[in-house]
């Protein structure tokens, strides 16, 4: 089945590469010879600790920001609730390497903040805390969305029952609403953890200065200088995967037994405690979070895009459109990169959404043997560094024996994005499915519906908000994926992220940031458009 093709086979080749260093040339000699050197590296404990601590740190901080915010969003929606959803999606549209750079430009010594206010923040930025915070600002929305979607889908009914029986709103929330969204909360935390341990951009830019070493950076190093150590990189990736698997087991432990039925098929009007006198404080809270996680890095990004030179500092005379006009001077390259990225992201969102729904449903129905392993398999790519998936895909597909291969075409990028981002819809949809009554689908079956009809007509509409949220996230992340794209893009093809990265490499920070602004504006409008169309058609 597709999961095998998308996930299992590349993983298998990474595993084989770890075992057989000469796999690339099709030889099996030197089995296991890469293990001793890699595993006896004295840096290994530091790497493992660095990775684990930043993963746990980011997950914890994401919960700290995402849970209250998501709960507020669902329980007492702030004015313009949908707008805030969109705003908190933007950190996803910002590639981690760009936000790392933006934060550095803003907060390092003589950065924008110091130039404007004289505040010195250099030492906070380049510290373990600084690194975890920067990553959290990018990642906390996974928790925010998981929690708010699940609470919205869960509705208020059970909490209302508690209120009727005399519970205070706080008590009802604490004892009913929060525990009910526990699966979503834990799933969100797990995603945050895996995203954090898989992250390369921020640890490379900030972590190395803060004295934090993580696995992804070490993997990248093994692939950065000659001689390339493919096997060493694969072994470290397997360690990373083990870490994610452990987190996955923990999650199943925590939430596996709890099924809370809140959607039983009976109509349930959505009613919220209106903002009322809480309007202003709510707005303040949401604005504060948005200011820090969103406005600051984006402002830094835009300033850089409009600034003639970095060394000239912040002066009005430095204002220029040069970087933007340069984009159009690239013989249409910048624009075609945009087109490539957007269509790939759209394709990936549709395919992973469809597959994710199917997988989550199969896992929830427990009809097939080995559902736990399917579930785990669908999660694993989230823990794999992109560069390793890239190598795995090359090893797998660039073989003479395939009669037809996606390698060296845009299709390989689509495959890699699907592999990388499949975990998102699976996580989101399955946490939504956990809240569906066990009787809904069987009821449909009793009335003569086929399994696919039940899925399409009953399950799908009920989990649609979660599915859509996850697909939008896939779109956002895929439209700016860097690491795999760098390795896999066929000669002559560019994506937005590759384009930006190359500008940075050539020292054209301004032009890279200009492209980043353009790309974000476009993907944001695509998403807004999609959302507008969907709300209209569901009305």
């Amino acid at each position: 089945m597709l999961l095998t093709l998308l996930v299992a086979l590349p993983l298998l080749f990474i595993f084989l590469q770890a075992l057989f260093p000469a796999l690339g040339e099709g030889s099996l000699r030197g089995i296991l010879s890469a293990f001793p050197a890699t595993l006896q590296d004295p840096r290994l404990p530091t790497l493992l600790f660095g990775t684990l601590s930043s993963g746990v740190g980011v997950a914890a901080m994401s919960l700290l920001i995402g849970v209250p915010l998501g709960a507020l969003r669902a329980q007492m929606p702030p004015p313009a609730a949908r707008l805030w959803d969109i705003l908190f999606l933007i950190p996803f549209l910002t590639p981690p390497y760009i936000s790392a750079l933006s934060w550095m430009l803003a907060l390092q010594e003589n950065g924008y903040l110091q130039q404007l206010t004289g505040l010195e923040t250099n030492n906070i930025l380049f510290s373990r805390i600084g690194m975890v915070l920067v990553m959290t600002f990018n990642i906390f929305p996974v928790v925010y969305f998981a929690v708010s979607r699940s609470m919205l889908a869960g509705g208020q009914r059970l909490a209302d029952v508690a209120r009727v029986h005399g519970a205070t709103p706080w008590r009802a929330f604490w004892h009913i609403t929060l525990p009910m969204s526990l699966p979503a909360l834990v799933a969100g935390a797990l995603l945050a953890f895996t995203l954090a341990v898989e992250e390369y951009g921020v640890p490379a830019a900030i972590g190395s200065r803060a004295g934090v070493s993580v696995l992804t950076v070490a993997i990248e190093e093994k692939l950065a200088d000659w001689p390339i150590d493919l096997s060493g990189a694969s072994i470290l990736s397997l360690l990373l995967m083990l870490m994610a698997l452990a987190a996955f087991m923990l999650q199943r432990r925590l939430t596996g037994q709890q099924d809370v039925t809140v959607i039983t098929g009976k109509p349930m009007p959505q009613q919220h405690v209106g903002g009322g006198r809480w309007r202003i404080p709510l707005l303040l809270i949401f604005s504060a979070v948005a200011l820090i996680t969103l406005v600051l890095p984006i402002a830094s990004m835009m300033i850089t895009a409009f600034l003639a030179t970095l060394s000239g500092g912040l002066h009005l005379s430095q204002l220029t459109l040069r970087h933007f006009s340069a984009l159009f001077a690239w013989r249409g390259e910048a624009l075609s990169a945009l087109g490539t990225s957007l269509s790939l992201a759209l394709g990936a969102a549709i395919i992973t959404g469809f597959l994710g729904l199917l997988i989550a449903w199969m896992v929830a129905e427990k009809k097939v043997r080995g559902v736990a392993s399917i579930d785990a398999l669908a999660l694993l790519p989230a823990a794999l560094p992109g560069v390793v998936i890239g190598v795995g895909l090359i090893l797998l597909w660039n073989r003479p024996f395939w009669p037809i291969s996606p390698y060296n075409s845009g299709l390989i990028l689509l495959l890699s994005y699907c592999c990388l981002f499949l975990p998102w819809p699976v996580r989101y949809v399955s946490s939504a499915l956990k809240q569906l009554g066990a009787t809904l689908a069987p009821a449909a079956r009793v009335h003569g519906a086929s399994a696919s009809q039940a899925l399409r007509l009953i399950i799908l509409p009920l989990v649609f908000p979660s599915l859509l949220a996850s697909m939008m996230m896939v779109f956002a992340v895929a439209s700016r994926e860097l690491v795999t794209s760098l390795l896999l893009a066929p000669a002559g093809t560019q994506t937005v992220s590759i384009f930006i990265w190359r500008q940075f490499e050539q020292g054209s920070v301004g032009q890279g940031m200009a492209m980043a602004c353009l790309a974000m504006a476009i993907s944001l409008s695509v998403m807004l458009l999609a959302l507008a169309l969907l709300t209209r058609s569901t009305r």
Partner: protein
Amino acid sequence: MRSGQLRKTGALAAMIFTSAMMMNNAEALTVYTAGPGSLAKNLAAGYEKKTGVKVNIFQATTGKVMARLEAEQANPQADILISASWDTAEDLQQRGWLMPYQSPNAAHVPERFKTADYVAQGISALGIVWNSNSGTPEPKEWRDLTRAPFKDKVTTPDPALSGASLDLLIGLQNSLGDRAWTLFSDLKANGMVISGPNAQAVMPVLQGAKAAVFGAVDYVTYNNIANGEAVKVIFPASGTVVAPRPMMILKSTPHAEQAKAFIDYVLSAEGQQQVADAWLMPARSDIQAKRPLFSDLKILPAKSDGTSERAGILQRFNALFNTH
């Protein structure tokens, strides 16, 4: 409405697939290259104009290019490889991957920048990149960065991520011996930090967070200067390291004749002028550039005998800076 959506999905997927398939062009020449993307583009465009043969470029850092090459061994895709590190060419030659070729245009390339199997496309050098607005005295020598004005003001690319940066360490050790290590520990004592690959080390210097980079690739900075940044490239009189960018034809190429013609083109006066325009030193000694040429620099011996010494130096440097 739902079936309409499904149809749209199908049509979209079909569009993606067909356009993906069309990107495959069996007749084109495939060049894997590290280094300036605009240069690769211009060379490809120039060659295409001359011969009508399309050139597909895969451009990334040396590491990414080599990783892809190595993973593709079973079914090689590249015809030509342009790397930023001489070592890679030596190594591939020893593995027997290369097709020997001496271009007639290589006659003007100095002996040390060519062999029977590969030849330099262009050359970059490592220098001190200094922000002239930083209020620090202009450094003249590597050692100057260990002095008081540069306390906590120096950064350097991570030699684990940049082959050229590692070459500088090797060059300094080969010429200074143990005094090189005194230099490195003095730099460490003066608060030098290691930051990512080359571009990431230069960025803080542009903004003024740091005053100087110890050992940055020069052409990127020349490009920055051309764009108005207030920075300067300084080549210490005591010597620095150059990084010739070897250009080679892979034995597995099905387009040997075209590949040779491409090498000829890059080494032609026109091609070399494009190399100079990208702020690299041309490999041919008879082509002028708007920047110092290798004949103006004192070059440190960068040769090391194989990977164990490279790994050893890297390990010692990392241990010193305690980065990992």
